[in-house]
Every structure is written in C-alpha cells, then in structure tokens.
C-alpha cells in the first residue's frame, strides 16, 4: 500500500514562508531582518536589528547574499529572516538619495558590527561628513583622536558595515587621489558624482 504525500499548489510553501518571516519580524521573534535593494550602484543587502540598520552590503563585492548572511549570522545572530517591509525605511531613503531628493540619511543605525574603539570612532566621525563635502584619511585620524593613525583610519573606513549611509566614499587620499573603497573605486566615483563633489 502506498501513501503518496499530499500535493502542494505551486508557490504555496513560498507564500506561506514569506508570511511567516514577516510575522517573525513584526512580532520581534526574529533578531535580524534583511532585504535586497536594487540601486544604481548594484544590488544591496540591507540588514536591520530592532536597534536600526546594521549592515548595507554590496552584494557582489561581498561574495553574494549567502556569504553576507553567513557573516551576519556569525557576528550578530542566526535568527535572521527576509522581511522586506521591515526594511522599507532604508529602501525609501536610498531611492530618494539616488533620485537626488535626499542628502542625509536619518534612520537609526546599529553599530554592533563595527569594533568598538578607534574603528567605531572613525566611522562615527565619518557619518558627520556632510553631503557634497570630502575629507582626507588624515582628517579622519585626527577627528578620531589619533592624528598619526591615517592608515588605520583607512582600514576602519574599509570595514564600514553601512557604506553609502555612513559616507566613507567622501574620504579621499591626502595626495588628492581617490584612495580605496569597500565597493570598488568605480562606485566611489559614481557616488561622488551623484553628490557633485570634486572628481579626478
């Protein structure tokens, strides 16, 4: 006697999965929510906790969605669900920014993916650089309280967990060169051109 399992309608399990994930995020059962966001600088993966945006990753430059989520699972919590509605605010602010209608992001940030101390101080100083302005790595080292540590400041900016929102693309080399960028120099150039900044 055979008892074949019941048939599911096409897409039935996926729809139910999406509803369950949304509920997990709404009811605070999930500790981390994520969504993918399309942008002129490529697809981004946005990751938030109840405290705020914790990660905004260039999908391709960071090994793809799976690798980005593996890293977040390890460093924050594996209780991660895909919940696009939870990330509506960051999606809207990014759309406005890329559409030229927004200069400052005013969503809350969760800093827990940046190491406390010098690195975090550099990133928090970086978050204060206004739209359209630029600074040098040396400026950032000074602002973070260690004037000679401009190389370490570059390292701190390279580890920025929330590029674009924390505008590390606004930090350039003292020589006038572009310096480096977590999303590749092409993107740094594009972001600076969106902001009408000085380009070389």
């Amino acid at each position: 006697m055979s008892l074949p399992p019941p048939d599911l309608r096409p897409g039935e399990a996926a729809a139910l999965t999406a509803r369950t994930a949304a509920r997990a995020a709404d009811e605070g059962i999930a500790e981390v929510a994520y969504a993918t966001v399309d942008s002129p600088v490529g697809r981004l993966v946005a990751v938030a906790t109840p405290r705020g945006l914790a990660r905004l990753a260039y999908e391709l430059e960071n090994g793809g969605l799976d690798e980005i989520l593996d890293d977040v699972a390890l460093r924050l919590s594996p209780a991660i669900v895909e919940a696009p509605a939870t990330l509506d605010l960051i999606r809207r602010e990014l759309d406005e920014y890329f559409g030229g209608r927004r200069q400052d992001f005013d969503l809350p940030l969760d800093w827990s993916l940046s190491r406390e101390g010098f690195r975090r101080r550099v990133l928090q100083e970086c978050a204060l650089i206004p739209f359209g302005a630029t600074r040098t790595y040396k400026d950032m080292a000074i602002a973070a309280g260690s004037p000679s540590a401009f190389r370490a400041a570059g390292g701190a900016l390279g580890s920025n967990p929330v590029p674009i929102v924390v505008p590390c693309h606004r930090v350039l080399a003292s020589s006038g060169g572009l310096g480096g960028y977590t999303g590749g120099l092409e993107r740094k150039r594009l972001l600076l051109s969106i902001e009408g900044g000085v380009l070389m």
Partner: protein
Amino acid sequence: MTKTAARLPPFQRFLDAHSADVLRYLVASVGRHDADDAFQETFLSALRAYPRLSAGSNLRGWVLTIAHHKAIDVHRARGRNPVPVAEIHDGAQRSPPPPGEGEGDHWERVRALPARQRDVLTLRYAADLTHAEIASALGCTEEAARRAAADGLKNLRKELTDVAATA
C-alpha cells in the same frame, strides 16, 4: 568537521530548505484548513529556540518534530483522542474529518486512525522520516513505531476492502 560546517545557517535558509516538507506533513496530518496556522506556529516556535540550538543538530528531524507537536495541538483542539494510546487495537474510534478537505482521501482516512498510528504514518509517509527519527519524535521505541505503522496500514487496507465490499 570544519568550523564553517558546524555553524547554524541563517534561519531564513533553514526555513526555505524545509518549508515544503513541513507544509506537506501538516496538510497530511491536520488537513489543509488548519495547515497554514500550524505551519506558522511551527516555524515561529523553531525561531524562538533556534539561537540556542547546537550546530550539528538534525535540523529536518527537529523541525518536523516541532510540526508534529503543533499537529497534536490541532487534534487536541478538535477534541479528538490526542494522546498516543498505549495499546494499538483494531477497533479504531473514528470521527469524521472536517468537511472541505481536498488533499486526497487516503490522508483523511489516516487522520481517522488511532492517534499513534496516524502520527507514525504521517511522519513516515508525508514527512519521510526514518523509523528511528519517528521514535525520537514520538518518544517511543523504534520497534513500537514500526508496529504502529504496520497496524495503521493494516487498518487502512481493511477499510478499503470494506468500502469496496459495500460499493
């Protein structure tokens, strides 16, 4: 085992990997009408416990065991005989399945079997668990699980013969 292999996957990946299996099991076990809620309850319970789970766990067996507990809750709420009976006997106490269930009447017949037989057959044939995994989910011996499966199949066959005879 490498450190990477021993990590828990992000919950969403685990959810995507097992959602169809869990839903098929629940449709068989509680019927389509109650399967949606039981599915959500299953994965929300799993998520609450997930961060404390040890990384080498049998995740599929684990989540189907949770689904089984949610199915038991549904059966209990319907006021059927919810506790696995110690002694499996042929004269099964039957209540009609709720109307409007369209997933093939063999699972309706399975749902009308005594609880232990129903549980073993749904876990074996709709969830594709091994008898060892079923024994662990039900807290019985593997031998008891095999016996309940055989008894359940015997009851189903007998019923089909009866139906054919009266047709």
